[in-house]
């Protein structure tokens, strides 16, 4: 065997010298140009190549050798033009890059084959022609592509024959679901954020739902991306989906464990996905622990709170007492049907029964107060409430002048200390009337 091989190589070498092999040799000898077949000469025109490759009288093996030579000396596109013209059929390429023709000439052209046949032909033999695969897919109709996607045997063959960007391009061209595509841009050392953005932005809702339900892919995204990149992918995945699905996106991509589970965590996740900076800053404060959110129902109470409240002259059905978060001595008086409040400069409390939308505004409102902690005068208190309602509860009022009027009316109706000053002090009244836009920290940064 060994002798035979040596002999064969010597024979080829001799033939090669006779045929004046071209000087083109790839670097480091890793990709040697195939020897020039006897059919070819260095000056052959495309017409000559078409004629030779389409000539059935020439043995197929010789034409295959010529095709391989043409591919390496003139390039695949050139060869493809010849093949398209001669209807030679699919091209096969072995792992060393050698190209051979397949098919039997007339009648074996791509336009007469199904997509499945074209793909199978492109994978026949030792190698696979990725360009032919892509070309065939891109020329195929959507139903044809879908039929291939549903053909598990063929898809398995494609996955076996192709890898990396070739497989990704093929799957994307076929219209493979997002869940099958997303891991490719994250392969290797770097992450192709632009492709992730494009894929997630263009995927239909049902494909995004499949990704959201795939903890492996979601974990991979979370591990590979951060900051604005992670946010962009999260926004794309959640775009237009139901609230609970958006919550699932947030839970899959962000570490929300600092927020108590349930509606607070859901609201924090939704704030993280928001387009509003003030929302994302609020969520980050919850996540990094600079603000703490609590369910009122989970706060600790002093012994026998009902007796305490009764002693204060109140009905325990209407009021109760809790310890301040982190304290076992300081108590807070709270209505039993309260919505929420700021317990300390860093602690926000709200009822577990609140909606996720209300929790979102509550977190933004109370965080804004925490970051603007001065309440020393009624006017300053007015500005604090104005700012907090402006960025939270009343933000949907698009007309800013109307928003200012609505916020002012709300504050004067519900904050007696402010309205008392407004009604009794002309300077305060003038200052409040003139305050039509928020000042201070309005981004919760």
């Amino acid at each position, binding site marked *: 065997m060994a002798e035979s091989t040596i002999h064969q190589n010597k024979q080829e070498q001799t033939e090669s010298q006779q045929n004046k092999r071209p000087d083109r040799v790839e670097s480091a000898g890793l990709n040697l140009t195939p020897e020039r077949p006897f059919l070819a000469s260095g000056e052959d025109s495309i017409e000559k190549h078409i004629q030779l490759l389409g000539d059935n009288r020439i043995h197929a093996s010789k034409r295959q050798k010529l095709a391989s030579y043409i591919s390496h000396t003139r390039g695949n596109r050139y060869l493809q033009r010849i093949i398209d013209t001669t209807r030679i059929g699919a091209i096969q390429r072995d792992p060393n890059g050698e190209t051979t023709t397949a098919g039997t000439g007339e009648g074996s052209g791509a336009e007469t084959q199904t997509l499945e046949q074209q793909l199978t032909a492109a994978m026949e033999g030792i190698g696979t022609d990725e360009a032919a695969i892509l070309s065939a897919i891109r020329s195929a109709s959507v139903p044809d592509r879908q039929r291939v996607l549903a053909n598990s045997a063929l898809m398995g063959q494609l996955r076996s024959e192709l890898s990396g960007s070739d497989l990704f391009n093929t799957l994307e061209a076929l219209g493979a679901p997002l869940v099958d595509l997303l891991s490719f841009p994250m392969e290797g050392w770097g992450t192709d954020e632009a492709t992730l953005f494009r894929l997630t932005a263009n995927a239909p809702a049902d494909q995004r739902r499949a990704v959201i339900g795939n903890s492996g892919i979601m974990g991979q995204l979370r591990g590979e991306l951060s900051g604005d990149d992670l946010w962009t992918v999260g926004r794309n995945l959640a775009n237009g989906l139901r609230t609970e699905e958006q919550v699932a996106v947030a839970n899959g991509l962000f570490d929300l464990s600092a927020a108590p589970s349930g509606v607070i965590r859901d609201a924090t996740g939704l704030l993280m996905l928001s387009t509003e900076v003030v929302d994302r800053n609020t969520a980050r404060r919850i996540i990094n622990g600079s603000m703490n959110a609590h369910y009122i129902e989970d706060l600790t109470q002093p012994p026998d709170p009902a007796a305490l409240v009764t002693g204060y002259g109140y*009905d325990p059905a209407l009021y109760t007492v809790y310890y301040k978060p982190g304290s076992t001595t300081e108590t*807070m*008086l709270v209505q039993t049907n309260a*919505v929420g*409040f700021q317990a300390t400069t860093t602690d926000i409390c709200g009822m577990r029964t609140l909606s996720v939308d*209300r929790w979102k505004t509550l977190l933004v409102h109370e965080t804004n107060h925490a970051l603007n902690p001065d309440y020393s005068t009624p006017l300053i208190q007015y500005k604090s409430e104005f700012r907090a309602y402006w960025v939270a509860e009343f933000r*949907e009022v698009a007309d800013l002048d109307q928003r200012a009027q609505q916020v002012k009316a709300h504050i004067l109706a519900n904050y007696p*200390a402010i309205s008392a000053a407004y*009604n009794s002090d002309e300077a305060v009244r003038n200052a409040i009337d003139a305050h039509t836009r928020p000042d201070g920290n309005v981004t919760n940064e």
Partner: protein
Amino acid sequence: MAKKSQAASDFTPESAQARLRKLVDNIPPSKGATIARVPDLDVCGMLAYSVMPSTGLAGEVIYLVGPDEMISSGLRTTINEVMRRLEVGKKPGVLDVYRFAHLFLRLRAHRRGIVLDAPDGHVLLRPGQLPAEIFTPPEATFEKDGAHFRFWIYETDHMEPFYFDVLVAPDGTTTFTESSPSLN
């Protein structure tokens, strides 16, 4: 002309507030709370004050202070007493629905909000949040069992519409049901 009692002759907003301050500061979680007049809740010759502790609106108590008495929204019976004195359940037309709603919401329901005259009657109502087919305009009727008040509000604590159906019996006893299309 009847001679005023000593307490009545000394009764001023300032003296009333000083008495209230003394009371409130003896309630540990309310010590140092903000006290402010709420003139729109003055009723039955009593002055209304808001006592707002550290928990803000979530812990607010409304006090009605008279020359010889102080009653608060901390008790369910306070609204009954106010209604009894006003004879709301005995005579028709004592309070219109808006005035009643204001007193009821602050003194009994512990809610803040705006009575809605239309299903889109508040700037913060989202489309469909209060379906037009279930909305009814505010109304006050007087029947054998007392005064009925039915009204929708946009409640600015939950930021949701709520419906209240309130009956004030002839003796002032006030009972009610509440519902919300979003929360029920």
